[in-house]
């Protein structure tokens, strides 16, 4: 159940640069076995996942094991992006966890209805963020099994670039 050797990839979509720094520091405190990538709105997120636009050079983009998604972002917000990821047969098996300052019950419910795999209220201090990242890493990278890219290719018959 523990997979210590592999490098896991987390893609973070958040338009607030201070929050991105906080998340990065928190992951840094929790070890070096996570490869972090940041995008800053819902359009960039989808372009990254589909190797479009500035991400067309697919050798630079890796299919993430987990997506952390802010809700309030420009261009395309988190719920729209979540709905789009979950409607795409080649992306929908990637777990998406919402990480937001919102604590509105409507946002929580909508996240789960759209297929979110967790709703976390963004901590404001580094200590609390480290606590969240520790538990998040433990659950997604030690407790549960994730679906590897090679199997998505084999079962769905399309070549994603690793």
């Amino acid at each position: 159940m523990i997979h210590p050797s592999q490098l896991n990839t987390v893609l973070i979509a958040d338009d607030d640069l201070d929050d991105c720094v906080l998340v990065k520091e928190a992951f840094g405190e929790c070890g070096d076995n996570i490869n972090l990538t940041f995008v800053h709105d819902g359009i960039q997120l989808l372009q990254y996942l589909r190797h479009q636009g500035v991400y067309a050079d697919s050798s630079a983009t890796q299919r993430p094991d987990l997506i952390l998604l802010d809700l309030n972002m420009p261009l395309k917000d988190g719920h729209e992006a979540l709905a789009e990821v979950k409607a795409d047969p080649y992306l929908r098996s990637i777990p998406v966890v919402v990480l937001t300052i919102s604590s509105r019950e409507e946002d929580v419910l909508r996240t789960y209805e759209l297929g979110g795999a967790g709703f976390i209220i963004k901590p404001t201090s580094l200590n609390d963020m480290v606590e969240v990242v520790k538990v998040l890493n433990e659950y997604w990278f030690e407790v549960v099994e994730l679906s590897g890219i090679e199997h998505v290719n084999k079962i769905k018959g399309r070549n994603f670039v690793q």
Partner: protein
Amino acid sequence: MFNIAKPVVFLMADDDPDDRLLIKEAFQESLISNSIFFVEDGVELLDYLRHQDRYSDPDIAPTPDLILLDLNMPRKDGREALAEIKSDPHLRYIPVVVLTTSKAEEDIMRSYDIGAAGYITKPVTFDGLVEAIKGLKRYWVQIVRLPVINAVKE
């Protein structure tokens, strides 16, 4: 530290009585006190969630905050039950975590595909199971916010 107010209700669907007992004991070992309810196959699971037949009393069968789902069960298996839950507008908000002996990649991918919020391969030792349940609870009980249905619906 984050969510301490409301006890989380778990519902486990598993046809193997030994596994149900082990899960129950692992929950007791894992310190954070929560209630766990059991059903034995996918048909019972859907009856429970829809308050049908012997599950009509909400005190006996409270709506769960999280479902733990075995895949291989008689009558209606976990894959069918998961697909049915995730296509039902009244049930789809409930997170479902698969807990199974299957290690088949196809099962892992299909489970996430149809909306699982985690896929746990049943550890072979009791200690391993307790560790997995502890990790599950730290995530879903301590750091994740789950929907409070009455606050939004009805």
